[in-house]
């Protein structure tokens, strides 16, 4: 995952040491090759396969351009480069390193990180990808991640999206159609307004954040993370403008999720989320492109019946998420502007946890709003700013962990400044490498209903403001 969702799993220090050694070795290799410059690319395996530079599909990765969205909808199968599968496997790698400082000291994260502030994590995430075609119409983006959060390293199945896609002409209309199989709702979405590929594209493992999130989105992602739900679905994109998708999600067994590195998604009470039957996910969007302008307006959502902890006898909790989103892009030669808006309304009907006597209300609502703008110059310098707000029905049962304040309400701002030095030239020995070196600052104006005493002590909401310095490298 690119976000800040904490990977849970077995603690494996040996794997962590391997990750650090790999990181250092690669840093040396890349450093030695620094002086030799060649044209550079983005998700390196996609770049090798298509022959295109990163800037064809990304303004500043991972933000997609109109062409990047079509590459994805066509199943990651288009080629044009010198290195395609077979025989060249479309493998790529990612390393995320960071330094985190919070405004006020925090409880130590534990493990190797026993200080109350200023954590340096050289291998926050190390990923291996299969990113590209398998056959002319079948392609995959499959990420596995070794993550490290201080307690130990965890190896897990990360964002994965497998597609079969083709084009057709129906009644005079151009159609891209496909079948899609993925492990995280919205990972299949080609717009960066939905949660799996939402801005900010990288955040600290240690960043404090709001307690509340909807099933499919929130200020920093939804409750479901990669591997917690598996889908089968289909989509059409008509006349390069009208997108419709329907997918059905099921939660794998706890055993399977544990084996894949992350069991399981938790509801707001900390219960494991198990879907009772397939959960439909839908998506409708209109994207209009005129010259250098591209605008999308869309809606999406999910309906899930959840049996908390898979314990029968209390009925199911029903979650209905309905989202509305919009993205505008203007890409003029070296200038790229992207504006995004996302709003999700979630209706929670707690038949189960109410009858268990845990929730206070039968029906709660939760609303998540995100507004963002990003400017990129020459695919090299990126500045982004965003506002987030999550609010909902006070529920003393659901939000009992919030220091006696039964409110999910949080809001704040995020700023991100990044430098992508290899957008026009990577190391000669591996010209497809790219890196995003940046600083982000997350400001909380309200956290879990409070502006002050958010920890029950003297910590103010702004005490959780987080400075994150990072290096996000793809190779």
């Amino acid at each position: 995952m690119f976000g800040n969702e904490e990977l849970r799993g077995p603690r494996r220090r040996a794997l962590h040491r391997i990750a650090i050694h790999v990181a250092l070795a690669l840093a040396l290799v890349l450093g030695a090759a620094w002086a030799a410059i060649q044209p550079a690319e983005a998700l390196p395996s996609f770049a090798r396969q298509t022959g295109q530079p990163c800037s064809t599909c990304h303004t500043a990765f991972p933000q997609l351009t109109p062409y990047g969205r079509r590459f994805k909808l066509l199943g990651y199968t288009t080629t044009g480069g010198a290195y395609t599968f077979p025989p060249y496997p479309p493998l790529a790698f990612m390393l995320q390193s960071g330094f985190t400082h919070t405004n006020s000291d925090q409880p130590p994260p534990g493990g190797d990180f026993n200080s109350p502030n200023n954590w340096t994590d050289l291998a926050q995430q190390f990923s291996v990808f299969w990113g590209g075609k398998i056959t002319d119409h079948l392609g995959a983006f499959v990420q596995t991640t070794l993550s490290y959060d201080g307690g130990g390293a965890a190896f897990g199945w990360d964002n994965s999206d497998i597609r079969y896609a083709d084009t057709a002409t129906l009644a005079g209309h151009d159609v891209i159609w496909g079948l899609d199989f993925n492990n995280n709702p919205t990972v299949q979405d080609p717009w960066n307004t939905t949660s799996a590929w939402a801005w900010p594209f990288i955040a600290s493992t240690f960043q404090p954040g709001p307690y509340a999130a909807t099933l499919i989105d929130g200020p920093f992602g939804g409750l479901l993370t990669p591997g917690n739900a598996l889908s089968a679905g289909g989509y059409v994109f008509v006349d390069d403008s009208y997108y419709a998708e329907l997918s059905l999600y099921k939660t794998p067994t706890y055993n399977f999720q544990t084996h894949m590195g992350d069991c399981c998604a938790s509801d707001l009470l900390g219960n494991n989320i198990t879907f009772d039957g397939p959960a439909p996910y839908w998506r409708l969007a209109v994207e209009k492109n005129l010259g250098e302008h591209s605008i999308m307006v869309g809606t999406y959502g999910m309906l899930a019946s959840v049996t908390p902890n898979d314990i029968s006898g209390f009925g199911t909790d029903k979650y209905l998420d309905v989202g509305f989103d919009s993205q505008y892009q203007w890409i003029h030669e070296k200038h790229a502007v992207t504006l995004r808006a996302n709003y999700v309304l979630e209706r929670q009907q707690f038949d189960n946890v109410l009858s268990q006597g845990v929730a206070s209300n039968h029906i709660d609502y939760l609303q998540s709003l995100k507004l963002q703008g990003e400017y990129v110059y020459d695919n090299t310098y990126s500045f982004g700013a965003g506002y987030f707000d999550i609010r909902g029905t006070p529920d003393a049962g659901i939000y009992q962990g919030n220091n006696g304040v039964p409110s999910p309400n949080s809001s704040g701002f995020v700023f991100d400044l990044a430098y992508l030095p290899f957008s026009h030239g990577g190391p000669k020995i591996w010209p497809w490498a790219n890196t995003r070196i940046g600083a982000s600052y997350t400001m909380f104006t309200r956290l879990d209903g409070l502006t002050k005493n958010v920890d029950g002590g003297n910590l103010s909401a702004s005490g959780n403001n987080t400075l994150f310095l990072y290096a996000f490298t793809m190779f």
Partner: protein
Amino acid sequence: MRPIVTNLAIVVTALAALGPLRADELPVRNCTWCHGTSAQGLTVAPRLAGQREDYVVHQLQSFAAHKRDDFLAEKYMWSATANLDPVTARNLAAYFSSLAPRAANDGESELVAEGRAIFENGVPTENIVACQACHGPEAQGVREIPRLGGLSFTYLKQRLEQWNEGHDALAAPMPKVARSLSPNRIAALASFLSFVGGETAEK
């Protein structure tokens, strides 16, 4: 684990039924992921449908040789043609030329009359040649001379501006022709041409 295995079996069966191992004879989608699903143009990428086969081949050669050197050509097409063999280039050009073109109809309609006048008659007093002399009365092109009718306003305007800026200098006679066109006349020509072959042009 059983449901997962069952699901995977269903997926594999479905994919097998759909023939994912089928290989394409011509890598059309390598072009259409940017130029639009039926090559009618998308954002800044021009329409390829109905374009003259010889013109497309010649342009692909120009991109590969870095002779066509405007910003967008360098950004997208240099790398797109770097590994393109001549036979595939010719076959792709023949395929796209066989598709029926649709007019973009995205110019400024109030400029159409002025654009039509320049296209049909030129501006004799300023030594501006009539476009139709080479591109044909329906702006349909011939051999290496491109079809202009119905290309998008943005593309036509940018192309004429690029010659004014000194790009693609070897594409005689267009650099010289474009230099004699003012920004207003470029906008008028691009507007008129964007409707040619479309419904609006008939009215």
